[in-house]
């Protein structure tokens, strides 16, 4: 605690997990996350834990399933194709209510894709990922410091709610170096309470079973309803997000992970020119900060989503905002935008917003409603999205879902 160390994101992730009490890691090599297993291969034995290079991702996640069933803190990591292979096992862990922790250092896809950073696994991460009716808690760090400090959060949430928790990173966050300060006392696994469902050493108690199935009539549905209730509680209690320059903002950028860093760069350029831009960054992608975004949309009427995927994250933003504000998208599926590039979009979009702001526009639509209910002010046509990578103002009588996409 205290000292700032220059570390690669992947190494910070591994060290953060070990400091948080992880004592078991099984994984399989894949770029751009190889530093995680490499680091664990010497660090875990040093800490009295176990590292195994499995024969496949499929095997790795099942080793984790077994190890987690004994009640210890475990971890696996991979990158996109490898995470797909692990999804069956993750679903089993969800079905068996096991608190596992894993990280996806996302690369370009689909298929073998490329090895650069991408956010193409958003939907897979936040909508469950494997088969069946479940969620995974998803934390999206945007710095090496958070890569190092989030594993502990993941363990705590996973154990509190008995379910998988993950870190959704990307190639940039994995490969970049930044100072990290581990802001917690190292966790000694000996001080963690053995859960009352863990396997092994059954002396003096009844046998326990860890399993994800229940074939008895109606029982699985009961179990899934119990999980649904738990998921609702998590949505109510565990949302985390960050806001910057929101108070006077007329346009709010919405982005997570690496995209939020790039959006922040664009915001800085905009503010330097007196353009009132803010930034909303979800830290938990599931639970998604629905209410917080909806509340923000009562005041701010223009949002620009920046994501390194075709338009996955934007769907959740639009669902949260529910048509009460205009949501545009700047997407780079398997591309890494620069701050300048995003700023150019912001600048154009902002020009189109300014005249549309405030009372005048509302008058045009329905003069009677005027200033009375700014809440309900629908985005006027002129604000409707737009095509291609930059924003043209006069398009679109029919704003389609695709509007604004690149």
């Amino acid at each position, binding site marked *: 605690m205290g000292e700032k160390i*220059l570390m690669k994101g992947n190494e910070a992730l591994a060290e953060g997990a070990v400091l948080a009490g992880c004592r078991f890691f099984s994984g399989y090599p894949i770029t751009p996350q190889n530093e995680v297993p490499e680091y664990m291969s010497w660090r875990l034995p040093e800490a009295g834990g176990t590292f195994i290079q499995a024969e496949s991702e499929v095997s790795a996640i099942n080793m984790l399933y077994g190890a987690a069933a004994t009640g210890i803190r475990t971890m696996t990591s991979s990158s996109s194709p490898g995470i797909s292979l692990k999804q069956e096992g993750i679903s089993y862990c969800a079905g068996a209510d096991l608190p596992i922790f894993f990280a996806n250092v996302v690369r370009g896809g689909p298929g073998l894709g490329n*090895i650069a950073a991408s956010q193409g696994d958003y939907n897979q991460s936040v909508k469950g990922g494997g088969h069946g009716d479940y969620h995974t808690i998803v934390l999206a760090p945007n710095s*090496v410091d958070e890569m190092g400090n989030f594993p502990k959060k993941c363990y705590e949430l996973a154990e509190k709610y008995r379910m998988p928790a993950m870190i959704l990173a990307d190639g940039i966050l994995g490969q970049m*170096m*930044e100072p990290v300060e581990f802001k917690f006392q190292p966790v000694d696994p000996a001080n963690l309470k053995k859960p009352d469902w863990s396997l092994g050493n059954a002396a003096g108690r009844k046998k326990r079973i860890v399993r994800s199935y229940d074939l008895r009539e109606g029982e699985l549905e009961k179990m899934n309803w119990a999980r649904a209730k738990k998921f609702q509680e998590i949505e109510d209690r565990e949302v985390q997000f960050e806001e910057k320059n929101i108070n006077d903002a007329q346009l709010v950028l919405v982005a997570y992970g690496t995209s939020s860093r*790039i959006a*922040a760069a664009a915001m*800085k350029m905009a503010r330097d020119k007196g353009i009132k831009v803010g930034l909303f960054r979800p830290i938990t992608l599931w639970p998604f900060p629905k209410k917080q975004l909806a509340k923000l949309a009562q005041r701010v009427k223009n949002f620009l989503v920046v994501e390194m995927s075709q338009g996955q994250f934007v769907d959740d933003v639009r669902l949260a905002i529910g048509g009460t504000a205009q949501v545009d998208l700047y997407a780079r599926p398997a591309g890494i935008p620069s701050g300048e590039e995003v700023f150019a979009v912001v600048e154009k979009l902002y020009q189109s917003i300014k005249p549309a702001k405030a009372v005048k526009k509302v008058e045009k639509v329905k003069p009677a409603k005027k200033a009375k209910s700014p809440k309900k002010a629908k985005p006027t046509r002129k604000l409707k999205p737009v095509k291609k990578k930059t924003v043209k103002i006069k398009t679109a009588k029919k704003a389609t879902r695709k509007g604004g996409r690149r």
Partner: protein
Amino acid sequence: MYQGIRISGFGGQGVISAGILLAQAGLLENKNVSWFPAYGAEMRGGTANCSVVIASEEVSSPVVSRPDTVIVMNEPSLAKFEPLVKPGGLLIINSSLVNSKPKRTDIKVAYVPCNKIAEEIGTTKIANMVALGAYAGLTGALSVDTIAKALGKVFKRAKPEMLELNVKALKRGAEIKI
């Protein structure tokens, strides 16, 4: 204060470690720093480059698309990175290996015979340190002493003699004037 730097060269020329050194030195001066490598499928012999940011404010994007300073250690890197330098920015060229001249007139250019100077000191392995020294001397963004201190942090297992040579190279580089 904000300094976005790109360093580029052949794999093996030490551009990756030079970048880490800069970031570590920035950290020693209590700056916000980031380092990001362009990582590829090649293991050795390909081109390598990295981005470094040293700033007094929070670092926003770690990928430096408009660098204040570019250090090119080999010929192909010049063509690739010359266009990215910010107007008024600095381009440091390893003139031992780069024969072409930059076309732009809106940037400052420093020709540093990195390999030649390194060889004079003892080994071409430290050509990257000559370039870093030049960067420190020309921009004043970091002191040579801090970079020398960072050497010990980054290369924990390096022999003292080798570290000494590195410091010499830094100092020689810092004497370069445009």
